[in-house]
């Protein structure tokens, strides 16, 4: 039997901010939302993409030689990449010696990913950490995610997933029993605004959160605070009231501070980033928002910002 395969963007080890303890975070490619502020633009698209970092190029001309579609152009000592004719054959990425051209993701099977994860098992145990599968949207790979989670559970590794939950409920049903910590994102309370900001309405998401709150007892809610878009008190009020209806299975609420360090990623993918150069919130503002949410909550849970 062929093992389940997923497009893996990155396996990042020793993370301290994706659930408790020290964790290995598996980023899968492809998402059902496309938030305007996405910090991981390489994970939105389901297809492989080429990351091109022009200042890494030494103009050796190898890509120029292998490309059958003349996508690489060197002009006045500068390397340009014209994606229009690119067939994504990836030959240029193979020959590039400098990592100026790289494929965003790698097809990996569960065993390969698991072998990476298990390398840090001793650290998970000592720190009460484990793995976190995220994306893109990891629940778009229900089979892969399920068998990876199962394997981790067999090995005694603590499991978490982070999801925006814009997926069919059956995708969740299958895996929910193998998850120790369910990290769910809520971006905006109002469905219309949600659609404007992420490309989708939020009814499905809300229903899914209701569903998991009934079936799972360790849920962490994450809210990205994007200045002027999601950080209004109104939005926090809406989300807070919604969380109150979910009950005690919500254990942690994390407000994510905005940062503006990701625009280079958009450039390297030739993607357009609409939200740039906003000012990150100060710690004081973040603490205010935390206090605000706390004042709304009728349930008992930890609220903090990252």
């Amino acid at each position, binding site marked *: 039997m062929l093992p389940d395969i997923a497009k893996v963007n990155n396996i990042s080890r020793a993370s*301290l901010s994706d659930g408790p303890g*020290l964790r290995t975070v598996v980023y899968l490619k492809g998402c059902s939302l496309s938030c305007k502020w996405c910090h991981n633009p390489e994970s939105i698209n389901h297809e492989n993409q080429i990351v091109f970092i022009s200042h890494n190029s030494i103009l050796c001309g190898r890509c120029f030689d292998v490309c059958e579609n003349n996508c690489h152009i060197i002009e006045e000592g500068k390397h340009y990449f014209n994606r229009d004719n690119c067939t994504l054959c990836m030959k240029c990425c193979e020959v590039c*010696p400098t990592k100026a051209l790289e494929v965003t993701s790698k097809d990996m099977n569960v065993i390969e990913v698991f072998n990476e994860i298990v390398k840090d098992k001793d650290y998970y145990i000592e720190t009460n950490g484990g793995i976190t599968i995220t994306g893109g949207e990891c629940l778009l790979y229900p089979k892969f995610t399920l068998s990876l989670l199962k394997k981790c559970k067999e090995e005694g590794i603590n499991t978490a997933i982070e999801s925006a939950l814009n997926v069919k409920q059956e995708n969740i049903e299958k895996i929910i029993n193998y998850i120790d910590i369910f990290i769910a994102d809520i971006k905006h309370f109002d469905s219309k605004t949600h659609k404007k900001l992420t490309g989708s309405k939020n009814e499905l998401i809300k229903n899914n959160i209701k569903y998991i709150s009934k079936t799972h007892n360790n849920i962490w809610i994450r809210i990205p605070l994007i200045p002027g878009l999601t950080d209004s008190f109104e939005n926090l009020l809406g989300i807070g009231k919604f969380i109150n209806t979910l009950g005690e299975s919500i254990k942690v609420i994390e407000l994510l*501070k905005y940062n503006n360090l990701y625009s280079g990623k958009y450039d390297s993918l030739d993607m357009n980033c609409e939200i740039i150069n906003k000012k990150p919130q100060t710690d004081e503002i973040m603490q205010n928002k935390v206090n605000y949410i706390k004042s709304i909550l009728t349930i008992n849970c930890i609220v903090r910002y990252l």
Partner: protein
Amino acid sequence: MEKVIKYINENLDKNLTLTAISKYAGYSTWHFSTKFKNKMGITFLEYLRNRRMQLACHELIKGRKITDIALEFGYETPSGFDKAFLKEFGCTPTGYKNIELFYNNKYGEMKDMRYKITDRCSIIKERVVDNNVDSQKYMGQKLYNYIKGYYNLPNEKRNNYLLPASSLVAVIKNFKPYISDGELIVGYNYSDGAFPSDLEEYVQMLIQSKNNNKEDWTKYIENSNLKSNEKEELTKMIFDTSDPFLYPYNESKNNIILDDSELSLINEYAARGSCGTHNHSILSYESVLKYGFSGLLDKIKSSRNEKENLSKDELLFYESLEMVCEASCNIGEKYAKLADEMQIEYEGERKEELLAIKKVCERVPKYRARNFMEAIQSLWFAHIINTWEDGINANSLGRLDQILFPYYKKDIDLGILTKEKAFELICLLWLKLYRDYDVQQSTIGGCLKNGLDGVNELSYLMLDATEALDFVRCLSVRFSSNTPKAFMKRALEVVGHVQKGVPFFFCDDVMIESLTLRDIKIKDARDYGVIGCVETCIPGKSNPHAVSGRLNVLKAIEYALNNGKSMINSENNPGVKTGELNSLLTFNALKDAVYKQIKRMVDLVCKLTNSSILVAAKNFPLAYKSLLTEGCIKKGLDFSAGGPIYNYYQIMILGIPNLADSLAAIEKLVFIEKKYTLEELVFQLKNNYPDEAIRLEFINNAPKYGNDFPEVDKLAYEIMEYTCKYIQMIPSVIGEGFHPQPFTFLWMVEHGKLTAATPDGRRSGDILAYSVSPMQGRDFNGITALLNSLSNLPTKLAPGTTSAIVEVDPYLFTDKNLDYFVDLLMVAGKKGLSNIQFNVIDKETLIDARKNPEKHKNLAVRVSGFSQKFILLDENMQEHIINRTKHKIL
């Protein structure tokens, strides 16, 4: 035996009988018992009991019930367990648990109790650290007295033993005492300056002074703080004597014969060797505290009287020790007298202090120390004399928290010392030790001789002092799975606060086993201390001969790919003829060729070292070190001649990470993917990579050590294993052999200069990796991956320690993350990490990273939920991070 010990350690929970284990080892029970006792210094059953009891301690700290633990460890009643525990460790399980909990819980509490440095210390700090004022006062003192002692010895006494002893005695006797404002601990050694540290170097320098650097000498003498007649005398002694050099230098010539290719190996810095006897020691200052020099003098006399038919050498040896010991007895007196003279001019507090100094110096170091103050002063005097004998450099202090604790505890219990005062005294000692380049290491933490954790209040106070004074105080922390996490957390916090890479960390679990594997008795191995940078030493019992030999294994690939010829100088044939390229048809054939080259380098290093061991033994006795090292007085044999209980020679291994990366790149790109032939590669190497794209391909498209990639970590393991094992197989002419030490010091630069371009993408002449750290900028897979790579190495084969520096984002040192950091280190220690040091990234590095991104690929900035490599950020963002990080540092 190594296998057996490993087997025992892994099966402690099983029923291990003497019969069964003897059978496993393949000996009769009697034979096995004897062998075991000889090797470990305790019987098999004692060892087993001790190890099991240690496991029990673990369970205790974890909070399990004593009754349960007793049962699990085979005691039917808790009281039986109590008794056994008491016998083994000298305290009851409950008592032990309370102490441990005390230290663990105290962490939070102690935070508010931490002391600030006193005004006295701030003033002295300004004087010592910022302005270096005091050293002016004693400039020239050591040189003048040392040379005078050398000249004044009557002709019939001018021999190898008495000449250096006489010089040292003259310094001890005649070095002018100084007591500076505010000092409570008194005594100086000497300032840094352009003069050598021991007799051998003096003589060399004197010979040279006749011809070359007359000007420098004249200037130095002019600036010194000597009386004008002394200056004249000194000038005369240096320049105007006709033939004063009766010191028998002819004998010290090394009679070793080397062939051309061996000379080339030496000239290319592939292999070098000498006998490192100089200024790397940890002596038994403890015995000075315990017996005083007068007590030690009695010991010399009685040992001598016990022996019959003393040889001429033995007689001279004892005489030299007596001379030095007698002079050492009286060093305190001078200071007592001066303090007494000075106090007349003072009123009030300072008068009292001077009177106290007088009282202390009247007593120590002549007699045993009775309290904390006397202990610190006595230790400092003992240290000064040690540095006068052969230089300050890396003469180290040993396990200070253990040595001083009994005195501290007694005084605190009696109510005659406060913690605050103890803190101030430690600060004052730290200030005495201050140097711009300081490798007078002290060691804290770690286990006691019985295996229990030895962290005590002084361990914490010493960390506090290091943090509060905020300069580089060479300090290392020993830890194991028994160490309280609170202590580790505090130590790491100091790393983060001081931001100068101190303290360093050594893992007991690895170090102790690696030392016992080299025939060091377990109780001694548990007492190891750290010298200088990272060399290991059994304090007061060994001559570790640090920095004896060194080899650059990276040269092995250069020679193997060129059939024994050098690539930096085509005239040279330093290597073994391992075959032309067309005979290296498989990767294994190439590896074999590399090992053959390494073998030959090791042979030469050991040959060179062995020949100079004999020269040192005959010509460079060290009386003071013999006095304070167990074994010498009893045997009647000098420190340099095999007198100490343990004598071993540390051989540094450079280039392991680069060689692993090189072999991995060849395996992948030449043998597996067949993208290049060996000939094409060698063309690139010989011509220093004319094609930059190929060079980058060898860097980027092959696995690199330091990322937890098994393909290449396995190679690093094999290279280190092969080299260490072979080094250990070669006997030394005196002592127990060679201790491998994969450590580069700063020499990765000079060795790199003489190494051709290598298949890991390193250009000709470029620096090598530091010790066993990954080549700079090539570890990009996160800190756990790096720790795994480091701890996967066969560290237990390196009793001279491996060493690694890890650069860490200051982010990781925030309070919130320290607990994780502690866990990381504890786990890595269990996995086999032996030494680690941290570098907290500073602004300069980041600026350099912006300029030279290829050198800093591992630099990552982490933000919630997303992390990005620094070099991938656009310019504005980089600027942002540079500024942000600076704020964190300031």
